[in-house]
C-alpha cells in the first residue's frame, strides 16, 4: 500500500486534503456549497477537451474551472445566483458530453475522471500539483483577512474598502485553483464533498476561524487517507469513500453540537 506508485497517491492526496480543507472553510462560511459543487463538476469538460486535443489534463481543468468560476461570477452579478450557477454548470457539462462524443476515450478513463483514481497519479504530476498547492496556500494567506471580513460582515467589509464583487471573484478563482489540483485524485464529482463535509464538521466544534481551519484540514486528511486505504483494499472508486466519509464527519459534528447545546443551554426558541 505504501510502495512504488502508491507513494505518489499519498503525497498528492495529502496536499489535496490540506487545500480542500482550508478553502472549504470559506466555502461553508460563505454558504457557497453550490458553487463548490459547480466549479469542479463543470471542469470535467476541460479534462475531456484536454484529452481530445492531447494536452495535459491539468491545463484543461485549469482553463475550464477558471472560465466556469468567471461565468458564475458575471452571470450571477445581476439576477439569481443559484440560477446562474446551475446554468453555467449544465452548459459546461453539456460541452463535456459533446467532447466525450468526439473522443474515443474508454469508459474506465471517464469514470476515473468523474469519480477519482488513486492509481492514476504519475510522478510527473506530483510537481505541478505541489506548485498549485503552494499557489493556493499563498492566495489564501493573502486573501485571509478581507475574505473573512466580507464573508462574515459584508457591509462593514464594504465600508472598509473591500469590494464584495471583487472578493467574490477572487474567492471563485481560489475554488477554481483548488479544483484544478484536486480533480485528478478525487474526481470531478466528489471533491466538493471534501470541501464542505470536513469544514462543516469543524465549525460544529469551534467558532474560532483559525482553529476551525486547522481542524477542518485534520478531518479532511483523515477522510482522504481512510478513503485511499479502503479504495486500495477494495478496488472501489475513491469518490465513494470520500463522499460517505465527509457525510459521516458532518453527522458526527452535528450530533456533537446537538448534545452540547442540550447540556449547556435550553433549546433555542424557534
Amino acid at each position, binding site marked *: 500500500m505504501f510502495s512504488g506508485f502508491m507513494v505518489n497517491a499519498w503525497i498528492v492526496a495529502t496536499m489535496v486534503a490540506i487545500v480542500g480543507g482550508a478553502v472549504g472553510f470559506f466555502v461553508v462560511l460563505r454558504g457557497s*456549497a453550490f458553487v463548490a459543487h459547480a466549479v469542479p463538476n463543470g471542469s470535467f469538460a476541460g479534462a475531456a477537451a484536454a484529452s481530445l486535443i492531447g494536452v495535459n489534463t491539468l491545463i484543461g481543468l485549469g482553463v475550464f474551472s477558471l472560465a466556469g468560476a468567471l461565468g458564475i461570477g458575471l452571470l450571477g452579478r445581476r*439576477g439569481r445566483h443559484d440560477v446562474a450557477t446551475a446554468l453555467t454548470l449544465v452548459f459546461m457539462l*453539456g460541452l463535456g458530453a459533446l467532447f466525450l*462524443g468526439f473522443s474515443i476515450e474508454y469508459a*474506465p478513463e471517464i469514470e476515473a475522471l468523474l469519480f477519482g483514481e488513486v492509481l492514476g497519479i504519475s510522478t510527473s504530476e506530483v510537481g505541478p500539483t505541489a506548485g498549485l498547492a503552494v499557489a493556493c496556500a499563498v492566495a489564501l494567506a493573502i486573501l485571509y483577512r478581507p475574505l473573512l471580513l466580507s464573508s462574515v460582515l459584508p457591509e462593514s467589509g464594504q465600508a472598509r474598502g473591500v469590494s464584495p464583487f471583487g472578493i467574490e471573484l477572487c474567492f471563485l478563482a481560489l475554488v477554481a485553483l483548488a479544483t484544478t489540483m484536486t480533480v485528478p485524485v478525487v474526481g470531478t464529482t*466528489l471533491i466538493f464533498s471534501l470541501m*464542505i*463535509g470536513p469544514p462543516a464538521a469543524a465549525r460544529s466544534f469551534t467558532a474560532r476561524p483559525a482553529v476551525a481551519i486547522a481542524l477542518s484540514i485534520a478531518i479532511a486528511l483523515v477522510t482522504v487517507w481512510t478513503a485511499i486505504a479502503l479504495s486500495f483494499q477494495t478496488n472501489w472508486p475513491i469518490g465513494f469513500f470520500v*463522499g460517505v466519509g465527509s457525510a459521516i464527519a458532518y453527522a458526527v459534528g452535528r450530533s456533537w453540537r446537538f448534545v452540547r447545546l442540550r447540556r449547556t443551554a435550553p433549546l433555542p426558541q424557534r
Partner: protein
Amino acid sequence: MSHLLRAIIEPGFFSSASVQLAAAVGGLVAVVAAAVGVFTVVRGQAFAGEALGDIGAAGGSSAYLIGIAPLWGFIGIAVAAAGVMEMIGIQRARGRDLATGIVLGAGFGLAALLLYLGTTFNNTTGATVTILFGSIFALDRSILPAAVVFGVIALGIVTALYRPLLLSSVSPDLAAARGIPVRLVGSLYLVAIAVAVALSAVTIGAILSTALLIGPAAAALQLTARPGRAVAAAAAIGLAAIWLGLLLAYDSYYWPPHHRGWPVSFFVVTLVLLAYLASRALGRRRARR
C-alpha cells in the same frame, strides 16, 4: 423551397420510430419540468434540484445493476433523497445549501460505487455515460406509460398546491399566519421536484437534468412576473429547446468530426442557456423603458 427544408430537416426525421418516441417523452418531460421549475426558481431551490438529479444517478445505475428500467431507479432514489434532505433541515434557509450538499456528496459517492459495480459485474460499459449524460434516442417504448403517470403526479402536486405554494414561496411568514402548513407544502413540493428531475434525467442525463428544470423557468421569469404566464412561457421554451435539440442532433449525424452524431443533451443545454441569456437581455431592456 423543399430543398431548403430537406437541408434543415433530414429525410426520415418524422417517420423514425425512435425520434417519435424521443419527441413524445421529451415533450412531456419539458412541460412537467418547466411547470415545476418556475416554483423552484422562485423558491431559490436550484441547488436542491441539481442535487436530486445528480443523486438520481445512483438510482439509474442500481436499476442497471438489477436489470429494471432506469426511470424507476431515478424516481426511487430521488424521492428518497428528497426525504432525507427534508429530515436534516432543508427548510431553514441557513445551512440549507450545506445539508443539500452533504446529501448530494453521499448520494454521488453511492452512484460512483454502483456504476463501478455495474460495469464490473454486468460488463455494461457505456452505462456510465448513458446514465450521466442521457441517450434519448435509445429509450424503450415501455417507459412511455410510466413517464406519463409520473408526469401527471408531478403536475398534480403543483396544481393542487398552486396557491399555498405560491404564497409560502413568496412570504413564508404570511403563509404560516394564514394557517398554511408551510413545511408540509415544502416537503410535497420537494417530491414534485424529485419526480420532475428524475423524468428529466431519463431524457438528457442525470447530471444535466437541472437544465430543463431551471433554464426555461428562469428565462420565463425574466419575461413575466405573473406565475401563470411564467409556467406557460417556461413550458413553451422547454418544448422548443428539446424538440429543436432533437432535430439538430438528428441532423448532426452528417456533421464532422466522426459522423456519429452530436449528443442531444449538448444541444438542449445550449439552447436552454441561449434562451435564458436572450430573455435576460429582453427583460432588462423592458425594465429600462
